[in-house]
């Protein structure tokens, strides 16, 4: 008996000998072309950085994520320290990234560079995590984190609060641009996990009523520097 | 223009006034109206039941009946959709395809014909009542007619048009479905009929007599004070 792989591939090839007519769609003109093609039918992501930032702010607000704009890194540290005090965090895990380390250093509570000595049980006990990110998609209010840019897989999802520190120039207009940028940057060597985070974790499973913080963070902060 | 009437079988049997009203409006607009008495059923009941061979014979008959007609106009979105959308599919791999496509291009639902072919919205009707409009699914989704009947109704003198909740919901008729799955069909008309009744309108108007059969049948059973009426009957009303 042939192995399952060749069997299935043979069945597929056999099935596809009868062609299905190609749909005649307007979008055809741009399908199959290289990326960077704007998709002018999707939601607007803004043509200039300022326009994108406006859209981003609006999207994040609707998603119940908190956007904090600060002029420089010192102000970022200050803003996160204020948060820590207000929320009475005791233990914070962070990603050892250049943009994050100084912020962690300014914390008024205990902090731990999680990706340097990862321990899942310890992470489970942390109140919050601070990471950087790959990019931010204005169009959808999504923050793209990765196992490379955000200290692994668990750091940005296990603690109750997730704080992302990013520079304004990491904001891109739309998802297509973010994906194209990823490919340009990592090529065939993608980080093992990439995640578009769009607002705090949520569920509507009980009577379709929105509840935040289903399994992932209940609160999501984006500290945008610059 | 010489208009050949396409009168669906249950209009013929159960709602003859709809066919007469259709003819009356067309004549009032100065058109000649003919009725080719050899027409029977469009074949939709068989088509929907999966009996495409039977339906195909009906379709081929209809092609013969309406051969040479300048335009064919029917007061039913559903039966017109059968001719316009499904005859070509049914006759796809047969020598009749060209004739089917030709008939499809010459066949129109009543409100579609008035608004899109004749360019008329005011047919000179008067009807001082509150009405709500029900979109039959075939008219709405197969023929993409939504504004046409509303334009016609808004031009009727004295008529007040009220939109309902559940605007685009199906009434649950679905031909034999309504009898094969009566409880599901009834649940659907409860939702739809309830929303129509809540508008407080005097009449529920539609371009689809089959939907009106279902909705009217339920409204009557429930004793709701709102009556079914075909759009042709409204437009024929001039006193």
């Amino acid at each position, binding site marked *: 008996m042939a192995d399952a792989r060749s*069997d*299935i*591939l043979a069945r*597929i090839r056999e099935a*596809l000998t009868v062609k*299905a007519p190609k749909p005649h769609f307007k979008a055809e003109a741009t*399908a199959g072309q290289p990326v960077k093609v704007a998709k002018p*039918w*999707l*939601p607007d992501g803004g043509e200039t950085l300022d326009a994108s930032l406006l859209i981003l702010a609006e999207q994040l607000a*609707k*998603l119940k994520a908190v956007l904090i704009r600060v002029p420089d890194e010192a102000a970022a540290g200050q803003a996160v320290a204020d948060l820590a005090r207000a929320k009475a965090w005791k233990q914070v895990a962070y990603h050892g990234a250049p943009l994050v380390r100084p912020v962690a250093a300014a914390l008024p509570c205990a902090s731990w560079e999680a990706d340097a000595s990862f321990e*899942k*049980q310890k992470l489970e006990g942390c109140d919050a995590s601070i990471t950087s990110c790959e990019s931010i998609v204005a169009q959808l209010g999504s923050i793209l984190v990765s196992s490379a840019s955000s200290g*692994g*897989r*668990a750091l940005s*999802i*296990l603690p109750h609060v997730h704080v992302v520190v990013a520079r304004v120039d990491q904001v891109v207009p739309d*998802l297509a641009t973010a*994906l*194209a940028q990823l490919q340009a940057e990592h090529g065939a060597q*993608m980080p*093992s*996990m990439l*995640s*578009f*985070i769009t607002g*705090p*974790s949520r569920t509507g*499973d*009980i*009577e379709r*009523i929105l509840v935040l913080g*289903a399994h*992932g963070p209940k609160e999501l902060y984006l500290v945008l520097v610059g | 223009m010489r208009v050949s009437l396409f009168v669906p079988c249950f209009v*013929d*049997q159960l709602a003859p006034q709809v066919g*007469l009203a259709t*003819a009356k409006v067309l004549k009032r607009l100065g058109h000649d*109206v003919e009725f080719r*008495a050899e027409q*029977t059923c469009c074949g939709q009941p068989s088509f929907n*039941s*999966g009996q*495409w061979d*039977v339906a195909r014979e*009906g379709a081929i*008959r209809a092609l013969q009946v309406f051969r040479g007609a300048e335009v064919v106009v029917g007061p039913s979105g559903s039966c017109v959709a059968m001719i316009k959308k499904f005859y070509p599919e049914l006759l796809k791999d047969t020598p009749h395809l060209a004739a089917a496509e030709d008939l499809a291009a010459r066949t129109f639902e009543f409100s579609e014909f008035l608004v899109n072919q004749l360019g008329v919205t005011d047919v000179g009707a008067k009807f001082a009542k509150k009405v709500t409009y029900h979109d039959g*699914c075939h008219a709405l989704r197969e023929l993409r007619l939504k504004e046409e009947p509303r334009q016609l109704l808004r031009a009727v003198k004295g008529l007040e048009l009220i939109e309902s909740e559940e605007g685009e919901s199906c009434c649950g008729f*679905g031909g034999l479905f309504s*009898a094969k*799955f009566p*409880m*599901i069909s*009834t*649940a659907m008309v409860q939702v739809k009929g309830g929303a129509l009744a809540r508008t407080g309108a005097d009449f529920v108007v539609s371009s689809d007599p089959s939907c009106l059969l*279902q909705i*009217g049948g339920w409204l*009557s059973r429930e004793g709701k004070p709102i009556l079914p009426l075909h759009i042709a009957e409204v437009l024929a009303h001039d006193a």
Partner: protein
Amino acid sequence: MSDAKQIFIKDATLNAADGDQRAFIRKALGGYYVNRDLQKARYRDWERARDAASLAKWTAVNDLANQLEKFTANFERNGGIVHWARDSAEARAIILKIAADVNAKAIVKSKCMTSEEIHLNDALEKAGYGVVESDLGEFIQQLRGEPPYHFVFPCMHVKREAISELFTKHLGTAPTDSPEELTMIARRHLRQLYVDADIGITGANFLVAETGQISITENEGNARLTAALPRIHIALSGIEKVVNRLDDLAVLLPMLATAGAGQPMTCYNTLYAGPRKPGECDGPEQFHLVLLDNARTRLLADPEQRDALHCIRCGACLNVCPIFKNIGGLAYGTTYQGPIGSVITPHLRGLKQWNHLSSASSLCGACTDACPVRIDLHHHLLHNRRNAMKQSPSLFDRVFHAGFGFVMKRPALFALGGKVFLATLPLLKKLPLPYMSAWLKTRDLPVAPPKSFRDQWKDSAHG
């Protein structure tokens, strides 16, 4: 009548008569309609976006063998291990073998309809593994011992009181009527389970051929935890989930969220390329992917309905379906409920047994309009009906339609039949005729007019 049909008629009839439950479902979906419309309005051209989404899937599905080969080569290059399963039994055996090989005890799962399709939980539990569903809705359904009601909103039919009772019974928590508190109970209960589990099982929404990544869409974060903490990650996916390029997701991810849940994007859209890489601080040691056929190639072989394999399982067609809303998801008796389920189940599990789902539709077409990838859903219901008639017509249908066809071709007989019908209608209404009495149970018929249209036309000056 098939067993499945008998059960369906019984359950559907019962549920359709349950006004309270139907109102509950409508209310639950109310917010969805509002949010969906708000999000759709942000699209500069929704219809064109549907074209693009549809084309992306068409391109992949119609080149499936090549794209799968490309995908699996890239997936393996990323360090993942690919397994192929012709059917459910093979898929279950593969997963059981992995579990045995890695000496697993506890398994945590995130939502995966394909695992429902192959009845994976049963098999794992019989083999002695502890299996916990981590998606809140799936967790609730697992405790209830009931399959999902809706493949995106698994427990949308369950009232909060029932959930509170369920949690009290199984988790010993205090009763509450707050959805928020109930969610937090589940959150607290599941957290340690992720940490302790050896294997995490997830589904996959897209397989990206160009990069060898799998994409998983979720709102709660449970899939991310499932793929982060256990030392083994197994993903189970149908072979049709392939897209050619990463860029295709720029269209498909937002549309999936908007069409299915009224969101701009689902909360977490995550791409996985292999297990933990050198230099990464966490993540599983092994990443397995089980690719399942299970009769998908049978559907693929039908060019008329091949587009049903474009489905991205957004659930939009269920949310707008008046049949679904009135009979509920459990009545279908299928893994995939609603219009898409009615279309594909006959292909996956047999037309004779499952064609009744295609008949149980008024063909209103709301599903087809809602589908982000433009699957011709309601017309496929017609195609299934036609195929079923060809395969095994019921006696009633044969006789009825043969008779109808005979009369349809004879105008004189047709007219005469009409006359007889009108004359005897008052009597017919009183007889226990099958279809007539079914109609009259809840609806009136109009009073027969004295004469048909054709007779009145003939009598008038026109004739």
